[in-house]
């Protein structure tokens, strides 16, 4: 993967009256990245993303996209970006097709009716093109939003909370769509989401911000050591299993969740040995599953920030 920077944000700051929404945010997104943009509520994610899209004018710092700045190349930058901010909003009184026509007309690209029909097919709305948006469910609007985002074939796609309000099936659909954008169309995707498991599944790089400041930035694999797992074991007797594990590995931090479940950190290479140990002790194992690590990582980072 190339490391050509496509977004460069340096020491971004934005204040609304006396409230400092963003104090010092910096990060870089490279071409081809699926970049996770994380932070708790009120961290400054939406303000930063709005600065990336020229919706909000920063008070200080630098925002560069494709090596250009908004000061003199706004149109050139925006013609290469597709975005959904918070939720896709459309003209409710117009059909899906007509909405796409409206946005395509000012996208800077030559988009025809055939392209619109193909894009509606791509997002699974091929048979709803003539229907007015006011009758669409939230999931359908999200998919129409994705269609609007991709219609003019942008290099960079910015999705702010694209799975908010979606049912589990909708979340999987959007996740698969984003993965297809990366694998089939080689797009660069910036993804802000509260669904940490989603970010962990699809992002290769990420930044975490809190209280308007960058806390950490890097490759997801580097930040979440893939070999150090937190596993959950389900068995008939969690107390007995805990005793067996502690007898063999006294320093392990084993947490008994309930009568049947345990959780503890373990190196990936040791998982089968623990399994063998318990089976040999006559303790049946019904399930061993790694917990999503980003959630813990995120919580640790944020809580240490709160302490600081």
């Amino acid at each position, binding site marked *: 993967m190339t490391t050509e920077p496509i977004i460069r944000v340096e020491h971004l700051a934005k204040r*609304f009256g006396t409230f400092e929404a963003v104090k010092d945010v910096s990060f870089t997104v490279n071409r081809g990245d699926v970049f996770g943009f994380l932070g708790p509520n009120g961290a400054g994610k939406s303000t930063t993303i709005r600065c990336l899209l020229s919706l909000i004018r920063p008070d200080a710092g630098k925002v560069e996209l494709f090596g250009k700045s908004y000061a003199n190349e706004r149109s050139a930058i925006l013609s290469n970006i597709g975005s959904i901010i918070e939720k896709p909003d459309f003209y409710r009184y117009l059909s899906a097709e007509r909405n796409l026509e409206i946005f395509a007309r000012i996208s800077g690209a030559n988009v025809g009716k055939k392209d619109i029909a193909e894009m509606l097919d791509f997002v699974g709305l091929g048979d709803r093109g003539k229907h007015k948006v006011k009758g669409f469910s939230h999931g359908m609007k999200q998919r129409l939003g994705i269609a609007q985002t991709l219609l003019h074939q942008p290099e960079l796609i910015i999705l702010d909370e694209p799975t908010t309000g979606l049912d589990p099936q909708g979340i999987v659909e959007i996740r698969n769509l984003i993965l297809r954008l990366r694998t089939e169309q080689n797009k660069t995707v910036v993804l802000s989401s509260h669904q940490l498991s989603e970010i962990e599944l699809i992002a290769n790089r990420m930044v975490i911000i809190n209280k308007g400041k960058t806390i950490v930035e890097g490759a997801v694999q580097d930040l979440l050591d893939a070999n150090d797992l937190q596993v959950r074991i389900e068995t008939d007797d969690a107390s007995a299993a805990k005793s067996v594990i502690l007898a063999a590995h006294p320093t392990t931090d084993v947490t008994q969740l309930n009568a049947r479940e345990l959780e503890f950190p373990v190196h990936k290479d040791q998982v089968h040995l623990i399994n063998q140990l318990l089976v040999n002790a006559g303790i049946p194992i019904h399930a061993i599953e790694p917990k999503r690590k980003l959630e813990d990582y995120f919580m640790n980072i944020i809580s240490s920030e709160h302490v600081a």
Partner: protein
Amino acid sequence: MLLKNTWNEFIKILSKPRSYLGIGALTLLIGIIIFAMKADGKSIISFVTASFEQTLTFNGHILNGYLIAFIILQMLIVHVPLLVALVTGDLIAGEAAMGTIRMLATKPISRTNIVLSKFIAGAAYTLFIIIWMGFLALFVSTTLFGTGDVIVLNSDGLVILPEADVLWRFGAGFCVAFLSLLTVSSLSICLSAFAENSIGPIVATMSVIILFTIIGSLDVTVFDTIKPYLFTTHMVSWRSLFEDPVPWSTIRQSVIILVAHNVVLVAIAIIRFNKKDITS
């Protein structure tokens, strides 16, 4: 890009039910006036001319289509601004309320062009309203009531305009009326750039019109210096075209002031929209 987005704005205006609400209301109002004139027009005219009948004798077809068109224009020019503001006040603020302003502002079109395209589309809608009003007032009235000389009552007394000398006055009158309504359109677009929902700009536009009209009608010396610069003072200047001789210098001054209002209001809207952080 300006033309493309102006086309988009036309589509949006044409697709909104509220756009037809104004046209429907206008049609209904004109229909009611024409019906009233058909049913009881002669007694209404007699009531107006009664005070002159001791010194003048009125012969001919007084209750004609031209006179009714004049009455319609005079009665409705006060109310049509609401119908215009209903649509134009929604052009920017409505998008903010709907959330589509985010989508629009992240496209490669300058914010200045966004405002200008909305102004052009608003102007086209206003023009359509005036043309529709002119069609109903003139065409329908003259079809039903025929044509004739127009008797106009103004502050100097009665003015009788020969039939052959009327049509051009209506043409010019509708142009000045259009400019007045365009100022209302610009005002509501300007207020719309400051708001996040369309009710605010619509109500604010009507409030400004009412306030300025009251100031204009108050016979108070302190207001005398500002009265000539209030756009509401010039909204009725189309009536001057039905005087004889026509006071061209007064009309020219009104046109200049109304154009200046339009330029300033659109400029304020552009500056405000360019500086606006879109947080909705």
